[in-house]
């Protein structure tokens, strides 16, 4: 197993390098001359040339990339000129909040999605199946940012059950219970779409497995239907469900952008939206890179979990 994990880790390195190349190229899309933009009315040809040399912009793209990646490896993601602090500090601080939100959503969508998917498959074409299918359809068609507003309107404004925004209460609070109360609405909203996707795929995977010969064997042994479904069928279906959960990790990390904006959650997504509108590009670049790297690692974890469940994959 250790050898397998090592192999997967090595394979992740080129992927992360690839990510950095794409982010680098995207930043090269910026229209206009950065020196010109920086200098404004002081943009005499001499000044432009001096700035270009100072920023290393007179070098070729590959050279620029190597210098940039070298800086990244030293933890130097540049400085946010709007916030006037190192990008990495700001990103890491924000990322903690996002991880709490996205992690809670991922757990929520996995558990609910899998349970709904199994129930739906087991009662195929029955009322349970129809009702779940209906809710799944609503879930995957619902704009999360809109659902968040509706939740705020009812749960926070109308019924005053839960706080509408932020991560902790402004006065008092600050403990785990306070955090959980603030987490419920945004995490649920963020999980809704992903739950629909997980439920759909779980249903399909279960139906696929239930038709396999080894299920007939399990029945021929005299196992109860519950054991056939949960121990035999689900065990086999889980192998194809786990990569889907890995992909959902990406959806909740990305979807956090909307949810954090709606619920004023002080995470990476909210930071990115602000940074885009203030054109704080280094901050955008750093945030996207860190989130993407974490996503790659989560998928690596999903691969490892899958290999642990299915001994045939380790070879």
């Amino acid at each position, binding site marked *: 197993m250790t050898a397998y994990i090592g192999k997967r880790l090595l394979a992740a390195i080129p992927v992360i390098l690839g990510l950095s190349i794409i982010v680098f190229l995207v930043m090269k899309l910026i229209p206009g001359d950065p020196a010109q933009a920086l200098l404004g009315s002081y943009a005499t040809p001499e000044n432009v040339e001096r700035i270009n040399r100072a920023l290393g912009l007179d070098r070729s793209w590959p050279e620029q990339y190597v210098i940039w990646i070298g800086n990244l490896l030293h933890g130097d993601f540049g400085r946010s000129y709007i916030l006037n602090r190192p990008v990495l500090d700001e990103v890491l601080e924000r990322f903690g909040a996002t991880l709490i939100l996205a992690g809670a959503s991922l757990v929520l969508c996995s558990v609910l999605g899998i349970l709904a998917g199994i129930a739906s498959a087991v009662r195929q074409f029955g009322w349970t199946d129809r009702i779940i299918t209906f809710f799944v359809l609503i879930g995957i068609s619902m704009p999360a940012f809109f659902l968040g507003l509706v939740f705020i309107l009812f749960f926070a404004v109308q019924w005053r059950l839960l706080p509408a925004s932020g991560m902790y209460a402004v006065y008092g609070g600050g403990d785990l219970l306070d955090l959980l109360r603030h987490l419920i609405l945004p995490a649920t909203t963020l999980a809704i779409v992903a739950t629909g996707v997980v439920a759909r795929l779980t249903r399909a995977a279960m139906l696929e497995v*239930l038709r396999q010969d080894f299920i007939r064997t399990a029945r021929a042994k005299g196992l109860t239907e519950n054991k056939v479904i949960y121990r035999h069928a689900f065990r086999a279906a889980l192998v194809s469900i786990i990569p889907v959960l890995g992909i959902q990790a990406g959806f909740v990390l990305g979807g956090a952008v909307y949810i954090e904006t709606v619920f004023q959650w002080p995470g990476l997504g909210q930071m990115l939206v602000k940074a885009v509108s203030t054109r704080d590009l280094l901050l955008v670049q750093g945030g996207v890179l860190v989130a993407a790297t974490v996503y790659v690692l989560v998928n690596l974890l999903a691969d490892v979990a899958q290999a642990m469940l299915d001994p045939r994959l380790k070879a």
Partner: protein
Amino acid sequence: MTDLSVSAPPVSRKRRSGWDLLMANRLAAAGLFIFGFIVVVALLAPFLPLANPDITDQPNRLLPPFSDGHLLGTDHLGRDILSRLIWGTRVSLLVGISATAIAALFGSLIGLVAGYARGATDSVLMRFVDMLMAFPYILLAIAIVAALGPGLLNALYAIALVNIPFFARNIRGVTVSIRNREFVDAARLSGKGHAAILFTEVLPNVLPVIVITMSTTVGWMILETAGLSFLGLGAQPPTSDLGSMLGQARAQLFTAPHASIIPGIMIFVLVMSINLLGDGIRDVLDPRLRSGALDRPMPVTRIDRKTRPAPALSDAPALVVENLSTGFDTGGAVTPAVRDIGFRLAKGECLGLIGESGSGKSVTALSIMGLVASPPGVITSGGVYVDGRDVLSMREQELIGLRGARVAYVFQDPLTTLHPLLPVGRQIAEAILAHEPVGKHAAHARAVELMETVGIRDAAVRAGAFPHELSGGQRQRIGIAMALANDPDIIIADEPTTALDVTVQARILELLQDLRRERGLALLLVTHDFGVVAEVCDRVAVMKNGQIVEQGNTRDVLHAPQHDYTKRLIACVPALGEGHGFLDRVRPLFEEARA
């Protein structure tokens, strides 16, 4: 082998066109209707008697719905919401569909070229696509918008780019499977250039996949572009789409919720109608996914007998099957698979059930314990008596309690019939625990013992192995050990040696014989090989077209077969070194060859 293909007259069914199928799917039809309505209204916006969506009217701001002159009220600048909704839908539709078209165009091109060229081109293109997919979906789009600057067009490009991978991957997959087909080879040999082949031969066959991917992603793209606009990164004033309407109205969420809720519901209804339609289109174009193809088999075959036989027989042998008929429900009509099957099997006896594939012998064997996959399987008449009691009249729980305990099965291909992800020892122990709660340790110890009984060396170590780590012969021994787990009276072996090579086959048969003698088992052996029957069985029943055509002592049937079909089956066992003599001997028995 599960004999699903039955030589019964095919039910005549009209082939329905794609359109009919789509309309038959009520949800898809509803989706099409709603989507069509939205598109028509959006297209007609300039001709409808609507207020100017951009004219502000401060005194009349935030009017509630159903106000005079403003059916859906006004927003924070006093603009008519209905008018803005329709014009905004126009923009959202246009952007979403354009993004889909761009993603489909470039994604399909990449997929086609990568799948057709293979080699280095393929790996470079697909690595690039993998990189794009390695980003958490919307974040890459945000980075692109950050670089290009907020704006509707830039949001469109960004959303299109991040969706290219879905198309590239799907289309590449299909292209790879098509490029080596005969008609592509033929085009190549006829001197067509690569580009011509790609666009005239490959593309038409890939088109359904492109359409499916488009119809299932367009909803997403509308949602995502609306999302970017909501964040203020997409449509900029004075242009507005549904997302930016929602984003601007959010500030008045508490005082005038209608201004937020109306565009939100509009996005939801639009995306939902597209998703319904998309699922419908996918089902029509991809028959594998059509509902019904993936029916979940129930724990016990459906039993639908017009007349119930006597629930018990007095002084019956171990197993009695009487007038058993099983069929497959093909939507309305039941196509019979086996008819009026009857046989008896005494303790310690071996009955061979023989016939060609499709003759119904597996269906017969599986019907005994209600294991025919259902739907579509249905038992339409007859009785199955174990120890004189009709199992088909029992409650489901009682029947399940008999499985593996009194009547055990050994199946054909143990690679597919054993659970691939559970150690074999555990699978045997599970069979014990299903009927006798002896505890995990005791069950495991007995599993190892059973493995030794069926001749597996190092059983204690092997018990931890997974099926794929064992040889075919070992796997079948595991299957037999599992069947023996609860000391059953009856074993039904469905082609237990067909997947094995000849020497292993002989040893497995020997094992079954020994066990039968030692334990006094009644053995029902399903096979297509008269050689096996001659070696093992006391009596034999010959099946053809779902019926037993001849039944008797093995020696009598072998020496004096009554039915033509039996003669052929017997003749079909070749003798070693027979050479061309075999064909000469067999030919006269087949009418088709005599002509």
